[in-house]
């Protein structure tokens, strides 16, 4: 029965049937609600990142989180959406035809799309606009990830260029390859790998892609002044507002239901309830596992690590949430809770990379794990015909199918290599051609970026906050 309902949702055959049309209308509403929830995640990111930074940089950090919404949006509005989704259509919510066609490549090997530039032309219907709104919200999530790892030492004008670049080019590439029907999605045909590369709501497309930029950006900037002592030992730089960060992480959890559940693209596809519940399961297990793991490691339930644990669980379950059983969502959360803490330690202690909020561990490391988790835990009950394949349901190695894990490993590897090179080159070139580089002057950094860059203190009444 479940399979039957599911197929009805995906393959709309009788287009003028009032019931089908009503289903499309409700599904479009579901997408717009999802978009609003995901956009609210920007508030969560702003609170988490600002809470984890020091008071003297608080205005700068919250402002990057604020402005990146519009910057990324503008890049995506003009060209990013066309690059990523010019060839996309999905009748379940009434987007019956794509707005454009292939720009680079053809058949199983499409690399970029075109059409609907700046949302103009006759093909722009309410369904397309609802879809755009949902997709631009995902892009903005990617765009705001590096603002955390690069916080407290990133020049404002350099950051502005990143926001536009992310929305216009950086994000749309993997989005085109994964969700737009590009070559990664077609690996079921070109390479006989499972249902092709599968990422339900963006462990790879959004989080790994953002996490990779967080990594390369932090490498190019270098650590904050005073982060490592002369022996190379990491020093703690405690965040100035832990309650703010924890509230932010709950806002992210709230928004994440839009991120994952609405990724069914259809209110008529009841698997949205599975996605929502699996999301909450991974968040709960991730947070509590991290609480126990950090207590074991350092003696206290460090609230910053509990936050990272919850977010790590969310990131990791995002790619698989519709394809796995509740027990698997719990396992994904548990693994992420340990992984995120060990990754923070490894990145800081071994690689000597300074990431004030743990963005690389949360989004990059847990993102890669989330991509692979599809190929491990998918139980075959959902995703028939995914990516246009003949799959009867996305199946991981627990169902004896190794092909899907192959597609997932390929996807993760492609993201690390392509986005790694792209973002590293971007930051390096920008650093070379920007007067004085993309990093703030030592003087500004020591004083705090709030006055030199933004002209206002976050907390003018408190002298000690500077």
């Amino acid at each position: 029965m479940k399979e039957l309902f599911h197929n009805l949702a995906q393959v709309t055959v009788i287009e003028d049937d009032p019931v089908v049309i009503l289903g499309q209308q409700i599904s479009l509403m579901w997408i717009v609600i999802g978009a609003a929830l995901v956009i609210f995640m920007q508030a969560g990111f702003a609170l988490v990142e600002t809470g984890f930074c020091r008071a003297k940089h608080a205005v700068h950090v919250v402002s990057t989180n604020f402005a990146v919404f519009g910057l990324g949006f503008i890049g995506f509005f003009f060209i990013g959406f066309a690059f990523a989704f010019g060839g996309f259509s999905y009748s379940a919510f009434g987007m019956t035809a794509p707005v454009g066609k292939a720009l680079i490549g053809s058949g199983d090997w499409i690399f970029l799309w075109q059409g609907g530039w700046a949302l103009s032309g006759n093909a722009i219907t309410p369904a397309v606009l609802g879809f755009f709104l949902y997709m631009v919200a995902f892009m903005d999530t990617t765009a705001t990830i590096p603002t955390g790892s690069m916080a407290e030492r990133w020049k404002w004008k350099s950051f502005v260029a990143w926001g536009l670049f992310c929305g216009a080019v950086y994000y749309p590439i993997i989005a085109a390859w994964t969700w737009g029907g590009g070559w990664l999605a077609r690996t079921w045909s070109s390479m006989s790998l499972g249902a092709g590369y599968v990422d339900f709501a963006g462990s790879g497309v959004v989080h790994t892609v953002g996490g990779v930029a967080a990594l390369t950006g932090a490498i190019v900037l270098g650590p904050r002044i005073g982060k490592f002592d002369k022996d190379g030992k990491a020093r703690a730089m405690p965040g100035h507002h832990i309650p703010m960060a924890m509230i932010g992480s709950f806002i992210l959890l709230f928004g994440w239901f839009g991120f994952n559940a609405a990724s069914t693209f259809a209110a008529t596809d009841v698997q949205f309830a599975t996605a929502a519940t699996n999301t909450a399961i991974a968040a709960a297990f991730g947070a509590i596992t991290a609480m126990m793991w950090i207590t074991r490691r350092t003696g206290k339930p460090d609230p910053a690590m509990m936050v990272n644990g919850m977010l790590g669980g969310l990131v990791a379950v995002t790619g698989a949430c519709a394809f796995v059983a509740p027990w698997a969502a719990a396992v994904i959360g548990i693994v992420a809770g340990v992984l995120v803490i060990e990754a923070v330690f490894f990145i800081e202690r071994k690689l000597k990379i300074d990431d004030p909020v743990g963005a690389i561990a949360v989004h990059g490391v847990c993102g890669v794990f989330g991509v692979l988790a599809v190929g491990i835990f998918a139980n075959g009950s959902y995703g028939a015909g995914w990516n246009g394949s003949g799959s009867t349901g996305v199946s991981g190695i627990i169902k004896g199918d190794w092909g899907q894990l192959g597609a997932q490993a390929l996807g993760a590897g492609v993201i690390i290599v392509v986005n790694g090179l792209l973002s590293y080159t971007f930051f390096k070139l920008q650093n070379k051609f920007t007067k004085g580089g993309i990093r703030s002057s030592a003087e500004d950094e020591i004083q705090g970026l709030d006055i030199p860059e933004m002209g206002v203190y976050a907390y003018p009444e408190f002298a000690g906050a500077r």
Partner: protein
Amino acid sequence: MKLITAIVKPFKLDEIKDALKAAGVNGITVTEARGFGRQGGHVETYRGAEYKVDLVPKVRLEILVDQAIADKVVNALVKAAGTGKIGDGKVWVTEVSRVVRIRTGEEGPEAI
């Protein structure tokens, strides 16, 4: 006239205030302060890295009193501020040569 200055634990402030009033004090000035003493702070971890909390939050009290009640006030303050644990703070007394009440121009003990 004497100026009594005390550095005490912040959570003791209310008790101290009541004890000072009972001892005949008319007014106090309170400042939030941070500092370290012989204890020298303690070590915590944040995101797995250790750091020293060496400037502990304290409250600084300044009390102007007449010579006659100075000892009584100090004794009351010490009694109210003490927990017997490390970090209880200090109190010291200094001589004050001149005091003026700004509103009226009164000087000396009248101005306290």
